[in-house]
């Protein structure tokens, strides 16, 4: 029983990180029809930016701020202006393929210029355990959950409770009409790219202490976030949150009760089941699109 509780907490913590990444993923899709297959690498890179800042002598807190800012410039502004805007003219599919190329590019660049070895990464939460309901729960897991929940609550408050958020939603739901009523649609799209860059940098900060900084770690992360987004409903922020948590828990339970070797297969099987029986995702809405 104790084991199950620990697994659930650990699963929710990983799931919360997946949720952050999946939320960014769905935001990009909603506002700009960008399917970002480099999203996993987007999570991998900020940790290296922070490590590079620390190697240059910056204290950890400063490295975090620099890492987040640099991510927003490179993975937000740069990504939109240098890759998405020029490729979008050619369609959704060429853009998706270009993001796959970007994923390979980022991965190889980190391997080349930083290291092919896994590097340890400091945690923002102190190590150790606390006792909850008689169970020892790692501070790490709790810290991750708290930060991720704060980020998600902050984001949903922005989206649902502020005029800026309503404008972002308007730009995503119906850009033509948004423009007609005076919403600065281009600025709203840029904002979602910056928010996505912030979310992946935050996810990077939370997950790298657990899985170490490695050039290839984006593969698993990107896949988990992608599955989370689809399972939850590709077009819903709350779907991505639910999907992330679900995949995190499922992943951890599968590792413990099925087999560590089949750990990655279980979310995949689940994904196939969802696509078969509820293609719009658990919380998604069906979309109509002319082909």
């Amino acid at each position, binding site marked *: 029983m104790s084991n199950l509780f620990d697994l659930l907490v650990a699963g929710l913590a990983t799931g919360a990180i997946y949720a952050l990444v999946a939320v960014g993923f769905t935001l990009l899709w909603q506002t700009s029809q960008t399917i970002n297959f480099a999203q996993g690498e987007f999570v991998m890179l900020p940790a290296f930016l922070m490590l590079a800042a620390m190697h240059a002598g910056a204290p950890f807190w400063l490295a975090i701020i620099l890492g987040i800012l640099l991510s927003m410039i490179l993975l937000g502004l740069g990504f939109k202006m240098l890759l998405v805007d020029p490729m979008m003219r050619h369609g959704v599919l060429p853009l998706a393929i270009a993001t796959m190329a970007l994923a390979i590019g980022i991965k190889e660049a980190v391997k080349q210029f930083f290291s092919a070895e896994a590097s340890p990464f400091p945690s923002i939460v102190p190590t150790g355990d606390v006792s909850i309901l008689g169970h020892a729960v790692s501070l790490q897991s709790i810290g991750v959950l708290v930060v991720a929940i704060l980020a998600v609550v902050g984001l949903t408050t922005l989206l649902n409770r502020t*005029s800026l958020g*309503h404008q972002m939603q*308007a730009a995503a739901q*119906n850009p033509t009409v948004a423009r*007609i009523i*005076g919403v600065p649609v281009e600025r709203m799209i840029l904002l979602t790219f910056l928010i996505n860059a912030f979310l992946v940098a935050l996810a990077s900060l939370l997950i790298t202490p657990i899985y170490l900084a490695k050039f290839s770690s984006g593969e698993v992360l990107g896949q988990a976030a992608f599955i989370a987004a689809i399972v939850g409903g590709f077009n819903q922020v709350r779907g991505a949150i639910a999907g992330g948590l679900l995949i995190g828990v499922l992943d951890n339970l599968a590792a413990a009760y099925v087999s560590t070797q089949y750990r990655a297969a279980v979310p995949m099987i689940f994904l196939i089941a969802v696509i078969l029986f509820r293609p719009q995702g658990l919380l998604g809405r069906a979309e109509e699109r002319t082909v």
Partner: protein
Amino acid sequence: MSEPILSVHNLVGGYGKMTILNGTNFSVPPATITTIIGPNGAGKSTVFKAIFGLLRLREGKISFAGRDVTNLSQRALLNAGICYVPQGRNIFPELSVRSNIELGGVAAGKGLDLPARIEAALDLFPALRRKSAQQASTLSGGEQKQLEIARSLLLEPKLVLIDEPSIGLSPLMVQQTFDILKSLRDRGVTILMIEQNARSALEISDIGIVLELGQTRMVDDAKRILNDPRIGQLFLGGAMEESAA
């Protein structure tokens, strides 16, 4: 007739190489309902897009309230007092009814007393007030059209461009929508409307404009156009010249 609030002079433009507007000319007097009718492909919606800065004009000039507004940005046009309600469904389905209306005030910036304007808009539409907290997607077709009109009124426009408001609505909803347009006119708002449902639209209109092949064929009192035998002919597919000959 009083000084026109809107005049379009010799508009020429279209999509790519295709020319839709071929020297369109007309003017609209203030506080009237003016309906543009014409066969499919006459350029009715394209005129609206041109007025609202959504179509690059090759030639021509648009004046509004004594000012040249040709090719201004949407935000500038909204602030000048023009708003545009396009054809079809133009709501944000997943936002609440109230948030949808509130977005109509985005272009105004800080100076606007938004809550008061939203209340005023909801006063005009009791059905929307009852459902103001619901998701806009739950509204009926007619209510969605009302929502678009309510949203467009938030900036207290002087001119409303409304494209096919009756499309897909039940006869009762069409009547209600037209009643709203009449009450707006009575409060001094100028309505420029495109309607496929030409007969009922002309019945509530002051002026009718007949557009054909991107040119103005006729501008006259709406009642006279309504009674013109050539108009029926035009809508049956024949051109005006043929019927006149």
